[in-house]
């Protein structure tokens, strides 16, 4: 199987029919073997029955049905696990992505990229509520993480099989798929895709608040860069407090020894200094505790990375031949 298209579906009773037809038409234009997997994420509006109906007429459609709602990310993960294609494409179930864009993604995957991410350059969404905030957020995130991506939120993405199967996606991680892929050594390409406003049904996202974006940013930076060496991270945070604490204590001691002031008059410096030293100590200890977490971890980024790098080398030698 060359291509798997994974589509998470949640309460899309009005869209599924058209969605399936359009994906199928696009895929039939390409001469490759493919499968379409719909993952029903515990829909409650009858979508489940609807897709089963479609399945009866279209036996090549594959259906995975969750026992309840787990969120879009988990539907994607399930689809990735079931997918048998060498290339795996994921897309939204609400027709905001145009199935015609799948071609571009496949062309780029074939030319050797491990991951191709959609970029909704001309977004047809509310400007103030969604476009501008997400633009700023994406710019910030791509700057901090050094992954050059303009649009993190686009669901239309293509993966090389190895990357998709090794993707660690727990709830809340879907926004960082490209960053995560980069951390396990994927070569990433961004392609512009068309983006339509929702035709039917309700949009399921609200406005992300600024502080959340900033916290997310810190989180993803820490996870990508420090989750394998947390003691370094915590030691680094503690440095200013070592300096501040020690200098305050020294100041107090100097005054005390020189008797330039009464014993109690600069007690505030001593107290503050002690406080900072305490924080610095506890941060270093936190680092050690977190090292223990890493020793017992079950997710080995290094292993996946070396695995994928090896496949890159193989691919290069094939190209040279």
């Amino acid at each position, binding site marked *: 199987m060359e291509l798997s298209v994974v589509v998470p579906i949640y309460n899309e009773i009005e869209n599924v029919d058209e969605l399936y037809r359009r994906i199928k038409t696009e895929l039939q234009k390409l001469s490759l073997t493919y499968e379409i997997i719909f993952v029903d994420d515990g829909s409650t509006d009858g979508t489940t029955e609807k897709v089963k109906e479609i399945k009866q007429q279209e036996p090549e459609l594959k*259906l995975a049905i969750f*026992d309840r709602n*787990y969120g879009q990310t988990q539907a994607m993960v399930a689809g990735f696990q079931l997918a048998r294609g060498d290339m795996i494409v994921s897309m939204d179930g609400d027709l905001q992505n145009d199935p015609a864009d799948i071609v571009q993604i496949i062309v780029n995957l074939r030319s050797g990229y491990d991951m191709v991410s959609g970029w909704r350059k001309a977004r047809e969404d509310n400007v103030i509520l969604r476009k501008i905030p997400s633009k700023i957020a994406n710019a910030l995130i791509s700057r901090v993480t050094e992954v050059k991506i303009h649009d993190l939120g686009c669901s239309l993405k293509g993966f090389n099989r190895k990357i998709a199967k090794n993707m660690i996606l727990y709830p809340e991680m879907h926004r960082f798929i490209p960053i995560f892929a980069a951390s396990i050594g994927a070569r990433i390409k961004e392609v512009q895709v068309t983006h339509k406003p929702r035709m039917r049904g309700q949009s399921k996202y609200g406005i992300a608040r600024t502080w959340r974006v900033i916290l997310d940013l810190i989180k993803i930076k820490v996870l990508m860069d420090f989750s394998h060496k947390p003691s370094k991270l915590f030691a680094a945070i503690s440095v200013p407090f070592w300096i501040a604490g020690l200098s305050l204590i020294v100041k107090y001691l100097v005054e005390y020894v020189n008797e330039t002031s009464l014993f109690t008059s600069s007690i505030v410096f001593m107290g503050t200094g002690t406080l900072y030293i305490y924080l610095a100590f506890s941060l270093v200890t936190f680092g050690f505790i*977190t090292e223990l977490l890493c020793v017992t971890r079950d*997710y080995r980024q290094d292993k996946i990375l070396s695995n994928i790098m090896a496949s890159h080398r193989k691919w290069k030698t094939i190209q040279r031949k």
Partner: protein
Amino acid sequence: MEDNTKEIISERETEISVIVPVIERHSNLEELYLSYAAEIRKITTDFEFIFVVDGPMNRAYSEIKRFKNKYSNIELIKFTKSLGESNALSVGFEIAKGKYIFTLSSYFQVEPHEIEKLYSALKDDEVDIVITRRIREKDTFFNKLQNALFHKALKFFTGTNFKDISCGLRGMQREVFEKFDVYGDLHRFIPIIAEHHGVKVRELVVKQRVEDTKTRIYSLRTYFNRIIDILTLFFLLRFTYRPMRFFGLIGSILVVIGFLFISKLIYFRLFTMNYGLRDKPSLFLSSLLIVIGIQIFAVGLIGEIIIYTRSKKAKYFNIKEFIE
């Protein structure tokens, strides 16, 4: 091999399992068994009772042992040491063979005939979990008050509408239990956790037994534990996969406040004559805020690292059906 074991399990399946954890107080257990068994017999004769007796409850154990052999459908398990209600329930679920599993407190809480209501909700309406709400007509004022306060707090922190989460009589479809891993004292909140994950939970109104209307005054530790439980639940339901959202927010607010105070002090120190910091306790206090804030923030980071490094083993979804 695998098919074989499956077959054996399905052979052994019964219609109803009733699990009775015997942890602290209990009424006459034979009477309890007889009155509930009589009601269940009206539904089906294909049922079993599982008594799980905690370590220290030796008298209850010998009591059950005495009447156990009179009836054919009693399983008895005794812990060697005190392991608590959660473990008792887990062990009970593990050996239960029933399609529908009921849990029952070891003392009379609810009129036995109400069990039929629970059964029909599970069987006919395909509800995943039924819990019960005792109508407290005859209950004492103190009981009503502490119950109301507890559920007010519970509603505030978890948004649940259940009004009697601590009633021991519950029923559930067999599969449901396998999906939720509960530990500690959290077993009493299974319905809330389950409902949060989209499982169908229904609260049925049932009649309270007279025996249950005695004023209950628990130890101070119990009350304290309940408060901690509610806070734990609040955190787990909302922030399990995003601890940074919780700790990060609290931590950063504290740091910002502390930082503003310190900047004010430093500003005055630099630009005002004769302004020393040595006699300013606010330097100390604002530093304290920063210190606490950074610590909380760091805890959030540790939380994220825990989730991230352990994310591979956890399974977050369940495919009911795969049609190829």
